[in-house]
């Protein structure tokens, strides 16, 4: 029996740390810890609620749009503001394209490297690669000459000795199964994904007023004007450009992402049996019909709200936000009423109580408190959130677009729905969702275009903009289904200022430590049973953790001039 620690830690601050107990060649137990406390919510106390989105979008460099949206929804929910339809559609277009962009980046720039051995691509036969490419997709850049050039480019890059994004990969690890030609194909699409995202993100510049940080969020609507006769507003040319970008996005997902995903999955069938985890799934849902605030009304959500328990796809349970509560039994906080109770976010307490070892240390005391993340539970049950949760809830709810896409993908792989409860299932769900949302984004654009054509140019409801129209006290919450899962912002407004603000981020659900009842969090549960071929190179741990696309919502990134490694793998 031994213990592996994977810790991307710097001297100053930490992120996610995994301790895994290994017996023989298999993980028998695991602990997930976030080693940094941020307490971002405190920054918001006393500020104008209408400014909260600006601060919350700075929490994290990748999730900028999601915190901004959850924040304006929370304030709108508290004050009873309904934004106009155009604003809802623009927000949803930003959201849908954010999903597609985020998932493509996750797959090609992070997760694919868990399955694709980049260095092995140097051994690929360009002609064989072309044959493979043409057999799985009608993607245009698939000729022998193309792959010969890509291979030369990779060889040149490797020869320079600066592996950059590929440094410290576990190249040559026995758990890599793709043939060299598959690896070269994936590398070629890695390059194309760079180009794709460079263009696709222009959607946010068109709708957000500014890139990289969007400025369009506004309590009551959006800030970007619509005026068919103005160069400085959303006009016919903007809509045409959006359509072309969204169509390109759909093509890339259809012709590159999905075929690559199926290729990877077909070479790793055993990973449809590994990494299933909790089996309980929570989705807030997203993409409301009409002008509804999804915090108030789950009806008509394109991706439905719901809960799946014990992998049982025959029943979708409703979601009651009042049943969300957080434990700190194994988290570095204390509650006034004792550390074995769970508190709802509105009554949440964030009193730090660090009991962990002084760094540097070998192990955390996992019997006691061991993480800066609280343990949110729904009705006292640990939940997984994210793409798999969304696709399962939508599938079990009978959302046609999702049912068709999931059944098609399962058919291509020759497996049943039970294969979804796995590491590959989680990864596949992200791809399937990209396909469904790349299509849905065009529907949203159709709706926006039609609404503008009908003469509706309203983007903001300013009725309750002035603070003197607000009640003395108001509470509200904003639900948003972010790419990484169910996100909620909880706000209490007193005398026109923020009195309390709480954020429950998706990775808190997934990365949570154990609760008072000893229930594991989603990462912890998913790692049990994972095989480990080489304890010094725990590639398999990365596969399953990456399949969740973790975000510790800390996003503090600092350059270390001394070039110290920021991940330590310790085997003891």
């Amino acid at each position, binding site marked *: 029996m031994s213990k592996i620690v994977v810790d991307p830690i710097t001297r100053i601050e930490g992120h996610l740390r995994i301790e895994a107990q290994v017996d023989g060649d298999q993980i028998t137990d695991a602990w997930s810890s976030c080693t940094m406390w941020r307490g971002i919510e405190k920054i918001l106390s006393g500020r104008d609620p209408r400014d909260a989105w600006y601060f919350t979008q700075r929490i*994290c460099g990748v999730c*900028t749009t999601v915190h901004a949206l959850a924040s304006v929804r929370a304030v709108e929910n508290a004050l009873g503001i309904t934004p106009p339809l155009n604003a809802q559609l623009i927000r949803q277009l930003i959201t849908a394209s954010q999903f597609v962009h985020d998932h493509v980046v996750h797959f090609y720039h992070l997760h694919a490297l868990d399955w694709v051995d980049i260095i092995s691509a140097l051994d690929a036969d360009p002609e064989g690669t072309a044959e493979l490419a043409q057999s799985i997709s009608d993607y245009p850049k698939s000729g022998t000459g193309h792959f010969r050039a890509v291979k030369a480019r990779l060889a040149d*890059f490797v020869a320079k000795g600066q592996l950059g994004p590929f440094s410290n990969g576990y190249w040559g690890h026995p758990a890599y199964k793709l043939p060299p030609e598959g690896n070269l194909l994936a590398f070629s699409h890695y390059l194309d994904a760079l180009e794709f995202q460079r263009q696709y993100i222009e959607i946010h*510049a068109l709708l957000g007023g500014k890139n990289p940080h969007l400025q369009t969020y506004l309590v009551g609507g959006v800030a970007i004007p619509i005026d068919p006769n103005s160069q400085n507003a959303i006009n016919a040319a903007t809509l045409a450009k959006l359509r072309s970008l969204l169509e390109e996005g759909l093509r890339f997902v259809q012709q590159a992402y999905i075929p690559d995903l199926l290729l990877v999955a077909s070479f790793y069938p055993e990973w449809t049996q590994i990494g299933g985890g909790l089996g309980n799934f929570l989705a807030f849902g997203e993409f409301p019909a009409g002008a509804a605030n999804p915090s108030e009304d789950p009806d008509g959500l394109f991706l439905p709200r719901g809960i799946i328990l014990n992998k049982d796809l025959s029943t979708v349970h409703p979601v009651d936000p009042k049943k969300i509560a957080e434990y700190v039994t194994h988290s570095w906080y204390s509650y006034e009423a004792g550390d074995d109770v769970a508190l709802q976010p509105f009554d949440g307490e964030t009193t730090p109580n660090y009991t962990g070892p002084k760094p540097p240390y070998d192990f955390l005391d996992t019997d006691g408190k061991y993480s800066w993340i609280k343990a949110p539970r729904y009705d006292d049950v640990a939940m997984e959130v994210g793409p798999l949760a969304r696709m399962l809830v939508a599938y079990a709810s009978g959302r046609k677009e999702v049912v068709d896409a999931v059944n098609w993908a399962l058919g291509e792989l020759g497996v049943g729905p039970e294969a979804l409860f796995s590491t590959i299932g989680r990864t596949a769900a992200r791809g399937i969702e990209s396909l469904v949302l790349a299509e849905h984004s065009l529907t949203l654009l159709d709706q926006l275009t039609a609404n503008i054509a009908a003469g509706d140019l309203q983007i903001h409801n300013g009725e309750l903009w002035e603070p003197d129209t607000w009640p003395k006290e108001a509470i509200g919450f904003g639900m948003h289904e972010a790419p990484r899962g169910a996100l909620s912002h909880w706000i209490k407004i007193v005398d026109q200022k923020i009195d309390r603000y709480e954020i429950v981020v998706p990775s808190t659900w997934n990365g949570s430590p154990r609760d008072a009842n000893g229930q594991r969090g989603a990462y912890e549960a998913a790692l049990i049973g994972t095989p480990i071929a080489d304890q010094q190179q725990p590639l398999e741990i990365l596969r399953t953790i990456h399949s969740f696309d973790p975000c510790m919502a800390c996003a503090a990134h600092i350059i270390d*001039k001394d070039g110290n490694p920021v991940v330590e*793998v310790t085997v003891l």
Partner: protein
Amino acid sequence: MTSPSPTLVLGLGNELFSDEGVGVAAMRALAQQQLPGVDTVDGGTLGVELLPTVAGRTHLLIFDAVTSEKAAPGDILVLTADEVRAGHQILFSAHQIGISQVLAAAELAGHGTMEIAGVGMAPFSLDTGYGITSGAEQRLEEMVAAGRDILESWGVIEPSGHTSHQRA
């Protein structure tokens, strides 16, 4: 949208964690000088999303918070292109894709930058709080001057005639 200048000054960091945001503060201070032919962008903690902003530039100057065992808080450190590029990471999260990965990716995609340099300040504090510390505030002018020196050495801007900063 106007077409971008070949020279980019990128401020990096998270403004919610005091001096973590010193790079963004330095970028803003430099932006106030309105240097012709120089774009200034608040990169925040964006990772791979910075690719479109970075791609296709000939000169790239990065302001950021920097740690080094040899540096005391407030020290201004100049980073060479290799030091900016160097990054040895196994990533748990797409959020950890840092500027070194973005630069390598831009290069791989055929949008490499010719000249790269960084100017960093060792932080006084990384505690949660909006805005940089007063210590960092006092050192900001020197950080900006170090950035100007680099832009001058590249021939991107005219010498200002100001006294050059002293290297820490």
